[in-house]
């Protein structure tokens, strides 16, 4: 075999492997979409027809409606709070050296490492201790902590990429620190903050394990309601909800890629 042929063959095999692996990653989502459109009560492949009845059932199911509303409330507050806290902290660690900086950074990024059930369980105990029970407040606090590392990271990267001369130029032209922050720094950080907020919102909306501990029936979020449903019923109503979530996040990712450039955000463009 000529080396050139071998190279072609090797590259063909490589891409075939990549395609297979991607199929493995993608097929579950496709199966969900397929199931959600099936008219049958039982799970079956291939589906015997096409129907939207599970979607109708899913959106009209009161538990899901309530849980979705809860989720939106929690997500809105949690990701916005996390954005404020996280941006401020990212600014601090980019600009200042102060005692305890490393420790504070370690604590605030540890929710990435601490198992979600440990965090959830901890906040459950904390809620009981503070006498706030499994209220919205507790759920929001837990979510703020869980998404905070992502916001800090995103804003921090934007700060790092900021040309420090711009702020000096503004100060040199007579802008007060507050004006520098509001007229120069913040506008330039907006893409990073928007990206951080978006990631935080998606993660909060879909967070399950910790939420299972800190929510009560009154405050349960959508993933918790779905979990309860899966344990009790086997019909494809969940498939419809799941399909909506899959399509929603895929669309969001497309948008994020278009306007923010995923490869740039993740810094995986070849040098």
């Amino acid at each position: 075999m000529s080396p050139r042929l071998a190279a072609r063959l090797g590259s063909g095999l490589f891409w075939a492997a990549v395609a297979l692996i991607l199929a493995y990653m993608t097929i579950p989502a496709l199966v969900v979409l397929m199931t959600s459109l099936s008219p049958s009560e039982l799970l079956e492949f291939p589906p015997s027809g096409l129907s939207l009845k599970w979607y109708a059932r899913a959106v009209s199911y009161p538990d899901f409606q309530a849980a979705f509303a809860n989720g939106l409330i929690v997500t809105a507050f949690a990701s916005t709070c996390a954005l404020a806290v996280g941006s401020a902290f990212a600014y601090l660690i980019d600009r200042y050296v102060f005692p305890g900086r490393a420790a504070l950074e370690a604590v605030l990024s540890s929710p990435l490492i601490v198992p979600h059930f440990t965090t959830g369980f901890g906040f459950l105990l904390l809620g009981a201790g503070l006498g706030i029970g499994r209220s919205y407040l507790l759920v929001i606090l837990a979510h703020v902590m869980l998404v905070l590392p992502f916001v800090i990271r995103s804003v921090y990267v934007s700060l790092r990429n900021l040309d420090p001369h711009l702020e000096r130029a503004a100060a040199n032209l007579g802008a007060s620190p507050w004006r520098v922050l509001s007229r120069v720094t913040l506008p330039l950080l907006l893409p990073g903050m928007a990206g951080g907020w978006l990631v935080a919102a998606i993660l909060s909306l879909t967070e399950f394990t910790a939420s299972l501990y800190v929510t009560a029936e009154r405050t349960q979020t959508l993933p918790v309601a779905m979990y309860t449903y899966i344990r009790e019923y086997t019909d494809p109503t969940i498939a419809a909800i799941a399909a909506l979530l899959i399509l929603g996040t895929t669309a969001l990712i497309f948008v994020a890629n278009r306007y923010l450039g995923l490869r740039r955000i993740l810094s995986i463009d070849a040098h």
Partner: protein
Amino acid sequence: MKHRVPRRRPFFLAFLLPSLLAAGLFLAALGDVLQYSFRTFIPGSLDVGGFTLENFLRIGRPIYLSVLLDTVTISVLTALFTLLLSYPVAYALVRARRDWVRTLLIILAITPLFTGEIVRTYAWILVLGSNGFVNSLLKDAGLITAPLSLLYTRFGVTVALVQFSMPVMIILLATAISHVDRNCERAAANLGAPPLMVFWRVTLPLTMPGVISGTIVIFAWTMSAFSTPQLIGGGKVLMISNLVYLQGLSTFNFPFAAVLSLLALLVAMGSLGLIRPAIRRLERRVALH
């Protein structure tokens, strides 16, 4: 990078306070777990009794040890398979020539990360169930007559966990691969190394820090997976997280649940903490920083 240290620190306190508050809350939550782990369980009550070490001794019972062992086994296997499957995708993602291929790859690769664990777990129930996608496919092909039991097995749990872990691994590996100087690979080829040799002698060694940290991150991550073993394991495959849930929210044995949570936390932090110096050293060696 040097940090600028101005004499005046605008916004310092205003920006610091919210972070301190958040850190305080989080530490208080973890502190509660620690505190409960030393308290006596009073069956039938949410209140706890005096201080004791008994909860820690309870882990030593064979039934809990076997859960611990299962958790570690599943996590190790998941981390290794995730690595094997993610590397080719990450490589393709960085090195594909066409822009649209790279965009398609990144979207396919990271979308599963954002659909949430319940959706992903449910999807695998549909794929692995006895009337599910795989069994229907095999039956239609005439390869099997009775459905294979894939659900409620360690195999099924691992298959699902690997898929969940891949986006994170792909991102970590792709970052590492993108930092490899393309010309180093070209130089190796120019010196006579065939493609596989270039990979083995240049690309892989230079991405080793990413490989190791990725594998450990996935290991720690899988150690704390909950919904997959809960739903796909269906009580037949128990991981530490399921035990915490059982003890905490079914039996309401908060003290023992606290001990198990701490244990999981320690394993996760320990495995990540242990490798940090090793990774640093490796990164210096291949001069990434």
